[in-house]
């Protein structure tokens, strides 16, 4: 009996010590970056867990490729070649446009826009948390990525980096409830903020006045405000507008172009702060 009581007391002391320790860790890690090194070490330990967790998914993909028929592969190849030729033409046009813009800037004496470089990245881990739309990508500080860099997929704005480690970064997706992107409607050049609404949900434009000229089908692009995304990147297309007369606002829904399910390469926009 005495032994059991001693054991219980010992266990209580240990519990209290660990409880206090965890609370301190929680307080420090949620308010400062002092524990970043510890987190990097722990990330190394959890790598086998994430690798094994992703195995079934990867295996399904590989088996899918294996059983693709030659005709399907040929079709896919043809599509890619067509895309490549179209992109080559677009690139040539863009180069020409860039040269014209540079000439005009010289004539007008205007400053050059902020130069942005792209770092190619791949998704290595999808955060399983139900409440948060986050992924981890395989580039970080060593590749020049910093906090609050914009991330794009081939179709549009994907999200932004929120935490950067030496060789990986955590990306908050554009449809996360905590994410907001400064945007403009291409047709009218009216500025808005597009907010995420959680998993599988569309984006919404905040505080749209009842009299604002927005129509279904309008393209929404980044406005360049906020310094995370340059102007003109595809965000989405307006798919619904509802007037809320009582609040004198319009509820505008935007279908994002980004496709997180496509598992394609991502581009991290690394803004060059030095202006030419």
């Amino acid at each position: 009996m005495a032994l059991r009581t001693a054991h219980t007391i010992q266990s209580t002391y240990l519990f209290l010590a660990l409880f206090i320790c965890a609370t301190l860790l929680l307080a420090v890690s949620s308010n400062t970056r002092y524990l970043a090194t510890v987190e990097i070490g722990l990330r190394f330990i959890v790598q086998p867990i994430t690798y094994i967790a992703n195995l079934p998914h990867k295996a399904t993909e590989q088996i899918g490729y294996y059983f693709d028929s030659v005709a399907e592969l040929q079709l896919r190849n043809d599509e890619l070649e067509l895309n490549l030729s179209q992109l080559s033409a677009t690139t040539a046009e863009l180069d020409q446009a860039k040269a014209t813009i540079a000439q005009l800037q010289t004539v007008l004496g205007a400053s050059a826009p902020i130069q942005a470089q792209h770092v190619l990245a791949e998704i290595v881990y999808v955060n399983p948390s139900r409440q948060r739309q986050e992924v981890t990508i395989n580039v970080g500080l060593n590749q020049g990525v910093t906090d609050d860099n914009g991330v794009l997929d081939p179709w549009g704005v994907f999200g932004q980096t929120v935490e950067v480690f030496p060789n990986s970064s955590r990306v908050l997706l554009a449809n996360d409830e905590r994410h907001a992107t400064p945007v403009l409607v291409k047709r009218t050049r009216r500025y808005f903020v597009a907010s995420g609404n959680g998993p599988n949900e569309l984006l919404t434009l905040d505080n749209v006045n009842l009299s604002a000229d927005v129509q279904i089908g309008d393209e929404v692009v980044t406005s360049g405000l906020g310094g995370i995304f340059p102007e003109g990147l595809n965000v989405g297309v307006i798919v619904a507008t509802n007037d809320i007369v009582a609040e004198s606002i319009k509820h505008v829904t935007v279908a994002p172009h980004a496709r997180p399910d496509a598992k394609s390469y991502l581009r991290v926009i690394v803004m060059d702060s030095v202006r030419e």
Partner: protein
Amino acid sequence: MSDLRGWALFICSMFVALVLSVAPLPFDAPNWLKNLRPDWLVLIWFFWIVFQHERCSLIVAFGVGLLLDVLFGDPLGLNSLLLVSLIYVGRYALRWIEPSVGLRSSIALVILCFLVTAIKSLVQFITLDVQIQLGYILLPVLATFLCWIPFIPALNSKHSQFRAGVH
């Protein structure tokens, strides 16, 4: 169960629970399905508390909690705090559970799982500004309870053996 085999099973179950906790679902999976992911760590720890509570080390729970923090992108310490508290409270609940393992362990699991999920959501709301939704809390609890049902016969047989040994 030999001690070595028991420990091996304990470690394997923890590893499997961690893997299941982070196994990816398709991006376009419906929200209800995403919300129905059971809290595997709570389930497995609670099973071991009821099955062989002497294996449930507070220090191991603290370490597993840290790994979970990194895997879920939570502030360091959050899951450690919850797991350590779960084990401590779970051990105290054992005396109440033992007379009727099947029913009472299920009730205790639902209550503890609800508390763990609710506290986690509250801390995430404070520290990460993640909105609290009832579906995020209740559906995982329901899924955890449903996954708990297959464990009940094992616990019942273990406790009936124990009682037979005593008498």
